[in-house]
């Protein structure tokens, strides 16, 4: 099969890459771009471990073809936080509230929460629960994750997601 050339912005950097027509975005991120923070928990769009943000929306990268990403802006867990290593407020709050245990669901959850808070400044607990209901976590029982997101919402400001680093 002929490979397809895709141009996309990943975590602020322009990426031009040849992909198999049937390659999943998840594998392209993990195997070709070495962004292994995004995880696979089910491969069928049910667990949210593979959540990344595409053009501002949280999506399951196991259900998306890399070939369809032409011109898209993609954010993964590796792109959060600032240039000099400081954490994104969601990451800070996840740590503060003990919102992660094994951590396997964490990148996906943080990305779902980010996409949600980027457009909702004063969410209720119920809205938060709904926003992350596609992200399974087997360890925490979700309570402290909801606490962390609720707390992050208080000081939240929308980071400049589309900035292109040199």
């Amino acid at each position: 099969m002929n490979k397809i050339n895709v141009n996309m912005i990943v975590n602020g950097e322009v990426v031009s890459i040849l992909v198999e027509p049937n390659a999943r975005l998840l594998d392209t991120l993990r195997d070709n771009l070495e962004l292994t923070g995004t995880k696979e928990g089910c491969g069928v769009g049910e667990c949210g471990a593979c959540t990344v943000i595409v053009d501002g929306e949280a999506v399951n990268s196991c259900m998306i073809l890399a070939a369809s990403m032409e011109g898209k802006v993609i954010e993964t867990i590796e792109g959060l936080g600032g240039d000099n290593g400081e954490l994104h407020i969601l990451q800070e709050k996840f740590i503060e509230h003990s919102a992660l245990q094994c951590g396997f669901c964490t990148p996906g959850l943080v990305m779902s929460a980010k996409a949600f808070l980027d457009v909702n400044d004063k969410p209720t607990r119920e809205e938060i629960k709904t926003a992350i209901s596609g992200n399974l976590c087997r360890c925490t029982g979700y309570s402290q994750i909801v606490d962390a997101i609720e707390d992050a919402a208080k000081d939240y400001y929308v980071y400049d997601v589309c900035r292109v680093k040199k």
Partner: protein
Amino acid sequence: MVKKHGRRVDVLAKITGKAQYTNDMSFPHMLYASTVRCPNPHAKIISIEREQAEQYPGVVMVITADNIPGIPSQYKQKPILVPEVVRYEGEGVALVVAKSKVIAAEAAKLVKVIYDELPAVTSAEAALGKNAQKIYDDGNLLCKYKAGKGNVEEGFKKADHIFEKEYRTQRVDHTPLETEAAIAVPTTEGMTVYAPTNDAYKARLLIAETLGLRENQVRFITPAIGGSFGAKNYDAGVIGARSALAAMLTGKPVKMVFTREESMIEGTKRHPYICKYKVGVTKAGRITAMEIDLIGDGGAYLSKSHPVATRTLIEASGPYNIDNVKSKVTLAFTNNTYSDAMRGFGSPQVDFASEVLLDEIACELGFDPLEFKKMNHIKENDISGVGQVMTDVSLGKCVAEAEKASNWKERKAELASERNKGGSKVKGIGFALIHRGEAFGAAGQGIDTAEVQLLVNNDGGITILSSMADVGMGGHTMMVNVIMETLGVKRERVVMAPVDTSYVPNSGPSSATRGTMVIGNAARLAAEEVKDKLAAIAADVLGVLKEELVFKNEQIYSPGKADEHVNYQDMINEIFARGQTPSGRGWYTVSGLDWDRANGFGEAYLSYAYGAAVTEVEVDLETGQVSVDKFIAVHDVGHAFDKSEVIGQINGGVSMAVGMALFEDVDSKIGHIKNTNFDKYLIPTSLDMPEMNSIVVEVPTKTGPFGARGLGEPTACTAAPAIINAIYDATGIRIRELPANLETMMEELKNSRNKTDLN
């Protein structure tokens, strides 16, 4: 600058996506292996045709049991690849090694295996029946144990009421979010294997046996672990050994990662149980006798069924003061996925049964269930169901906290009057109480040991060497805390060495909630050794007795002369200057328990953990939907090293038990699993979880480090019975077989409507 948090030792790597889980790693020239699985639950292998797969472009090798240089398994343990007889559907019979994971998976479909199908036995009752198809030459009995005290016949005579009830629990999958994975890398010395596991030394043993190597020729390294709950014990050894076998035969690094479907089909499960009870109770509500018959489904292989069976036997009479108890447990081999420990290690099964049972009895005799349990539960120095004198009992405190936080009496009355108003949704409240033996206990004496070493450097930095797996429960953080509290040093000084069997000593598995008690104690003893060495010098310098010294805030002093002190770093410098080493080693073993194994009587565990729960549920009478509105979980942890982490453990355990209560059920009636991914095997989401009120009680034990009790597993024990009892309070429907899913609830609601129509 990265902000420092006094939290878990591994969080920064995890929150930034930098933590390396096994599947995140790769090596030059790495190959991929895929497993060929049997589609029948019971079959004899006639032949395996590999040619077609071998010729598929990109395939490097096809491997079967014949290629194993060592042994495929110990007797009645699950083989790495099946040599002759497949005992459950989904077992591996061959491996395909290829240049990519896609090619390996595609080519695996081309391996043709001819089977002679055998009749399958897929329930414990059927397996124990007279003319059942034999799964092993000597039959299907996996184990049988009995326990008890007093004389139940006499006890029943003293009773005014006799109750006979039966409860059933289902097959549950652990579903850690990370599936089984392994990478094996051949080395000049032997083999290095990376895989997530609860028990690195055990997994290494399995790999060495498969490859025919000495244990120390295999180096087992545990990267970050994406959850286990018991799933990554024997299963981790299996996938580790498969990848190691492929790596040995091809001479290249080999990666294997199970898809969720593979994990569901081949991975271990929680033992399904049938629990039969006969109970005698007086008019005044005292339990005079309890007779228990437990039957468990061990699946096709042994695994840890023996210690699980023993635990269920010991704990089946609940945390109650009963003079006469007689219990027995029988586990059967069946043609189902093999059962193994799962968060709770048998306790959730019998806690469900005994806690619903006592609720039923209370309701039938007109007692308030919480009051009834209060009246009967074990108090300090009472005798357990197997004859153990119980000490450090905090049940009273746990009940009191739960009662207070829930406002039990008032809420129960309020909900009852709300129900009287009618409506399509009804609410109810339920209670459960548990005790749980810590670590492996009497049944595991001799294997319940741990070694921990502390490497102390010139700058006073301390590295903890231990094979303890941090499966997500914060075990490493617990150890760091034990060291800090024992030596009075700053957190920054202490780091955990990576789990690598070539360097770290064997601390045993992270299972049965033994981490805090057994491994924590070994860590404490190692720190005590360091402390002792420093104290000898400090006592010298300060002119006081070494026993008087206190280690706190990096200072060492005698409380009598607090203004005269030396500091930790100076003592480290001094010890090195004298040509000695401050490093230390700790060894802890659970021993000295007086347990009569044949009769199941005596000291079953060194210590116990206690907990209580109150929950409120809402049942939709039209759809059968049960939603858990509130959950109050009270757990005595003895000593909380970090409250927020403790609460995380409680919430997580409760969520697992909510799944067990309401949805999770591996659908495998005929030995064929139908729900193999999260679209059909439902686990709780954020919308299924109630608002949690987790309450931490701290009544120290004499055995745990700083009085701490283990916590991981007790948290998964109260929710199922509490929810089922709340459903009864709401609807009058008594669920005796888990889960109370939509179908069950609809069916029961229909039955109860029919009953009312008849009346």
